[in-house]
């Protein structure tokens, strides 16, 4: 009986079918989702490998349950929060364009079970174009000048996780100081006036304070300066307008003698960057003067520089510049200019044209010697000659056009060694002969005129008349030799210690006259009989040269270059100088109312 009863008993096991029906509201309206924070700011998102997306959404009185991130419809991750960040890695994606979706899930507000279990929600999609750039980001910096200010540019970090760029600048202690933070890929340094500068840019992303960094060096923007003389005889310093003019507070020009730092003083101060000219108020012709430009920037938070940055410098000689180099050897040339030369170049400068009209570069292969070590010019400067040691030839040229030069082998006359020659305006040259005495040779016709036997002295200073009809030999005495065809006759001979003969030369425009100056009187004598034709008092230290055509000469005395009248010795121009023209490297010559200095500058008398 028990066996029959047991199933009945167990069939009466406790059961319940009671159900709790919840009260919910299925008819709710969609939420209005607001973006509180989202670091995707453009329609296209650029990603270098991975990007951290930072977000924060609200949905009114509903709750944002989760945010999912999808690429090309495939979910890449979910954040169960209304805000935060998500690192989106694209390492397995192909490079190029993709669709990025951010799907926002909110509660519905119905209170249903499905909502409780996230099986019911409102969703809203936000989509962007995503460009995957697997090659990464290389920070490259450049600069430009705009509106007188330095602009630094760098390639934009395209990814949306950019937090900011930090700009650093190297200070005077060679340490980098932070000067700016920005989200733009540009920085304008309003305190940069052109000095040497080094900047560093650092790219800061949401999760990497040093995602990328690079350095950029700017070499100083040197202000080009020039020193010259204007038509009014004023010495002028010009400079180029500073490139970064809008960053400049003050421009200071300093001036001083190049070899005397104690003389440096502030010559000009201006706040106008358009001021680019300074008239030199203190200084003498031929002074080697230095000028410095310092630019004081506007005050900046970075580093103030009240003394300014030295950005311009020029050292030159006061005067009208005919060549930027110096220490030239000078010779007058045919009254319209002069010849100046150094080792490898002979230049012909025209005073009427104020420019170089001819130059000769004569360089011999494997020759280290100077081209122009023994240069002579004819009486008026019509011709010049130059012995070229390396090939032992004599270069002869008209000074009007140096390209017309000719080369002469005179070894059979002078032997392998050469000393000096005198050159006449008709092309006749007077040589020391290797056989003793002197030879006359016409370099225009390349013909030997004759040989004159005489004692020979290395210190002999000979002169030749412009037509070649006379020449002098000065050893322990001064002899005048007359040339007739190929015969020579001694006209006179005077005992004359050459140390006392401080200046003598033939009148280039009158071959029968010769000028003598022994220190106290400048005399014009006849070549025939040495009789004094005229005489003026001259007791200056040096007689530098005579400009016969303009009837004036240049002398020096006690810190003054004196241009005197050849008629009476009166001073026509007095030019104070700080140099002694007796030294070859300070030499001066007078040519056509112009004093030409070996330092590359000229002084116009008119």
């Amino acid at each position: 009986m028990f066996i029959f009863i047991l199933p009945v008993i167990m069939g009466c096991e406790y059961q319940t079918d009671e159900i709790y029906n919840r009260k919910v509201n299925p008819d709710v309206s969609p939420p209005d989702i607001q973006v509180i924070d989202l670091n995707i700011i453009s329609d296209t998102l650029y990603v270098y490998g991975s990007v951290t997306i930072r977000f924060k959404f609200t949905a009114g009185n509903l709750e944002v349950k989760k945010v999912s991130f999808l690429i090309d419809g495939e979910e890449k991750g979910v954040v169960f929060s209304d805000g935060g960040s998500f690192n989106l890695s694209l390492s397995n994606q192909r490079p190029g364009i993709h669709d990025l979706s951010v799907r926002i899930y909110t509660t519905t507000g119905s209170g249903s079970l499905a909502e409780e279990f996230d099986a019911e929600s409102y969703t809203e999609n936000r989509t962007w174009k995503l460009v995957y750039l697997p090659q990464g980001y290389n920070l490259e910096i450049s600069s430009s000048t705009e509106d007188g200010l330095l602009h630094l540019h760098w390639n934009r970090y395209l990814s949306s996780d950019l937090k900011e760029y930090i700009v650093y600048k190297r200070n005077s202690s060679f340490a980098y100081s932070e000067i700016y933070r920005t989200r733009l890929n540009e920085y304008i340094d309003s305190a940069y006036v052109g000095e040497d500068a080094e900047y560093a840019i650092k790219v800061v992303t949401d999760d990497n304070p040093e995602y990328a960094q690079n350095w950029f060096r700017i070499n100083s923007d040197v202000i080009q300066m020039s020193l010259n003389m204007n038509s009014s005889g004023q010495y002028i310093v010009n400079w180029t307008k500073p490139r970064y003019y809008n960053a400049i507070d003050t421009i200071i020009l300093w001036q001083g003698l190049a070899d005397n730092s104690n003389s440096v003083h502030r010559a000009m101060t201006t706040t106008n960057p358009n001021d680019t000219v300074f008239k030199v108020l203190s200084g003498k012709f031929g002074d080697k003067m230095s000028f410095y430009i310092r630019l004081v920037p506007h005050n900046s938070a970075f580093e103030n520089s009240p003394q300014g940055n030295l950005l311009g410098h020029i050292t030159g000689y006061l005067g009208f510049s005919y060549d930027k180099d110096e220490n030239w050897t000078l010779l007058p040339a045919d009254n319209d200019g002069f010849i100046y030369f150094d080792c490898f170049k002979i230049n012909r400068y025209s005073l009427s044209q104020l420019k170089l009209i001819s130059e000769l570069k004569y360089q011999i292969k494997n020759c280290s010697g100077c081209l122009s070590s023994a240069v002579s010019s004819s009486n008026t400067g019509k011709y010049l000659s130059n012995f070229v040691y390396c090939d032992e030839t004599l270069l002869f040229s008209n000074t009007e056009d140096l390209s017309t030069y000719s080369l002469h082998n005179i070894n059979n006359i002078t032997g392998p060694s050469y000393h000096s020659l005198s050159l006449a305006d008709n092309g006749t040259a007077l040589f020391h002969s290797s056989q003793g005495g002197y030879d006359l040779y016409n370099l225009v016709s390349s013909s030997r005129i004759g040989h004159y036997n005489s004692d020979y002295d290395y210190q002999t200073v000979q002169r030749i008349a412009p037509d070649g009809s006379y020449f002098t030999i000065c050893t322990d005495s001064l002899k005048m030799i007359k040339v007739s065809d190929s015969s020579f006759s001694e006209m006179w001979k005077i005992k004359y210690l050459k140390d006392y003969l401080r200046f003598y030369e033939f009148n280039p425009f009158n071959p029968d006259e010769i000028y003598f100056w022994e220190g106290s009187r400048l005399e014009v004598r006849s070549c025939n009989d040495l009789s004094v034709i005229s005489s003026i008092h001259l007791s200056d230290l040096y007689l530098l040269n005579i400009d016969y055509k303009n009837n004036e000469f240049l002398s020096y005395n006690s810190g003054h270059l004196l241009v005197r009248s050849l008629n009476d010795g009166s001073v026509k121009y007095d030019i104070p100088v700080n140099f002694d023209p007796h030294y070859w490297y300070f030499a001066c010559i007078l040519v056509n109312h112009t004093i030409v200095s070996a330092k590359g500058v000229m002084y116009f008398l008119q």
Partner: protein
Amino acid sequence: MGSGMATFTMSDLKEYNDDIFPEFDAKLVSDFPPFLYFQPRLKFTWLRFSFGVEYTYLSTGSRISAKDYSGEYLFDMMVHSNNAGIVLGWELMRQKKGRMIAAMKGGFAYSGLKIKYYLELQNSVISEISNNLTALLYFFEPCLEYSYFVLPKISLSLHAGYYFDIGDKPFKTDFTLTNPENRNGVGPDWKGFRIGVGLNYAINQRL
């Protein structure tokens, strides 16, 4: 043959329900309520002393429920017990047709627990999990019984007692049921009143 109503303590299982109660709006619609028990037995009587064997089937259960348009959530724990034991009785009072007996029952209780978790959302069954666990306990039950012979061999009886579990064994299957909060084992707790009636047939005894 007897049957009656039993109350149950089920303290572990109730605590378990508390601890797993969902955070959303749900309700404990059934919490181990009193329920019928069934009790066949066979008893020998000698003078005032009686001795017998007895089987009892107990069951009760609980349900956490939530339901709306979007789905249904259920968490059921149906528990039953097959008890087998002996009964020792002592006749306290004898009337013409009536008997008052004090008895003590004891034996083992083999309990079964069926846990069912069910989740249906948007017309899809998301989860439906069932587990059957068992536990073996011992029990004793002091009781009073009054029987009245309505016929020479047939009597009706009233029965009242209190059931005690002995032991603290948790439900087990291939795992042991533990409380998620305190990690204690969760076992049956059939403790409670037993009030019932019986229909008895005397094989070899007559009034």
